[in-house]
């Protein structure tokens, strides 16, 4: 009983934090704060102070403002990429699991194919062929990200495909598509949501890694990933340039992971 009371808090708190951060970043242009790209050569590398609560970077830009603005892209990219991955993976997963046979073989080979291909080369190729920018980052992340959804959903469909209610529906003369959409797909949605929660945390880190390799959003746009990778060399001499965006990224990823875990637990309770 006690656990049931705790679950909503574990679910709500991370959700609230993420919503707060994301809302702040979306509303940031309306807030009475500095321009995130305002360069001020008179105040470089200032440690945190009253005027600049998180200090300034090596071009005199306010880190606090950049962290707030950065959330828009960092969280946005992760959410969009998770959504695209989930939609593609969901479709491929249920089709592959339900129809089986050749379709399954082909789809799962594609999944194997993508998993065994160096994801870095794929990411570089995508971000070089398409114009660089955040949309490309989203595509690059989703191009690999959908595969784990597909695997997971397929496995789930395999277990429910042969359940009695599906047979019953078939006996009643329902078409495959009808069964797929009305009976099987709804059962897979909770699992996808759980997976999305878990993946979001990972995707936020992927954006950071792509920035580390210079494949992320275009300068001077602030993203948490680009702020860490751009300033990482200053960790000894001006640590505030790295620590605050690093904290933002870790807290958000933590919340997303927490969200995924709590969703999973809730979902499992329902299952029983």
């Amino acid at each position: 009983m006690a656990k049931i009371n705790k679950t909503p808090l574990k679910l709500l708190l991370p959700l609230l934090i993420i919503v707060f951060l994301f809302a702040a970043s979306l509303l940031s242009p309306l807030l009475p704060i500095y321009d995130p790209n305002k360069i001020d050569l008179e105040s470089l590398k200032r440690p945190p102070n009253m005027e600049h609560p998180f200090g300034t970077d090596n071009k005199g830009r306010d880190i606090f403002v950049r962290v707030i603005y950065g959330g828009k892209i960092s969280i946005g990219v992760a959410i969009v990429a998770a959504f695209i991955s989930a939609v593609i993976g969901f479709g491929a997963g249920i089709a592959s699991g339900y129809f089986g046979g050749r379709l399954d073989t082909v789809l799962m080979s594609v999944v194997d194919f993508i998993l065994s291909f160096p994801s870095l080369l794929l990411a570089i190729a995508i971000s070089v062929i398409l114009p660089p920018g955040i949309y490309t980052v989203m595509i690059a992340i989703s191009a690999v990200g959908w595969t784990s959804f597909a695997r997971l959903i397929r496995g789930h469909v395999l277990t429910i495909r042969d359940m009695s209610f599906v047979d019953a529906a078939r006996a009643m003369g329902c078409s495959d598509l009808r069964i797929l959409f009305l009976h099987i797909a709804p059962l897979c949605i909770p699992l996808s949501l759980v997976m999305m929660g878990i993946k979001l945390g990972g995707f936020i880190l992927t954006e950071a890694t792509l920035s580390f390799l210079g494949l992320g959003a275009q300068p001077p746009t602030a993203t948490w990933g680009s702020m860490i990778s751009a300033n990482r060399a200053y960790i000894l001499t001006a640590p505030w340039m790295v620590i605050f965006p690093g904290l933002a990224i870790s807290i958000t990823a933590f919340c997303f992971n927490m969200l995924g875990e709590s969703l999973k637990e809730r979902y499992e309770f329902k299952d029983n």
Partner: protein
Amino acid sequence: MAAYVLKRLLLLIPLLFGITLLAFFLLNALPGDPVLSLVGERASPEVIENIRKEIGVDKGFIGQYIGYLKLLSHGDFGRSYHTNRDVLKDIVMKFPNTMRLAFAAMLIAVPLGIVLGFISAYKRGRFIDRLINVVSITGLSIPIFWSAIIIMLFLSLKLKLFPPSGTGDIRFLALPAFVLSIPAMATLTRVTRTTILDILKMPYISTARAKGLPSIKISIVHVLKNAIIPIVTIIGLDFGSYLNGAVVTETIFGWDGIGRFTMDGIIKRDYPVIMGCIIFGTVVFVVVNLITDIVYHYLDPRIRLHGKNK
């Protein structure tokens, strides 16, 4: 068994065809001229043309691909455009390093991850469970270059325990392996915990308890044995990706592995290096998958090696 392994390995051939073809296509679509990145600033047009012919980039996509397949059919991976070294030799030289790193990371991650997961599951809801949850989720939430830098500054610069960079014995291995093991350890902890919680709910555990078996025996014999499959899956996946190189970790700690080699190749558009690494990576991926499946079979004979009885 042998037939099964053979069959799986034979499937590698079409996979390799597909992957090399895709890789060639991508490389050709990429901007960036391998020859110009090779010759520096002031080479004359004749020299550039000459080199272009020599390495075959003038033959177009299909011609180049066929040329490469011909080379491969002689067991030759070609030579790096830049260093002129035999690609296969370089891969063979760097692979043991990558393997050492992957093994060491797993050596840290697997026991710790499983034990932490166990404790967490058995002490569910207690303080220790929550602590392990927070720590493991944190482990999943820190970008690897971030943890790499922090760990290097702390353990090398401040405490002077390990050298910050280099390729060599256990002292050099410690830091990159530790950094690399963090996400794997975190994932393993989560997976072990979830699986064990599932198993503890199963009727046969209650039966075993009712029969009066000592609980330690129940844990080891019944629980671990049933939890091992998802754990092996995760180990297989992580291990496979480590064997293909961990670019960021290798770069920061100056570890001479496959990941950095591939990345350098990509940056310099060194086609033979990139292709060699891709082929090698695919083989490693398939072999690790195969081993995982065989391990499944041995751990739980109910799992048939698919394809055997169809």
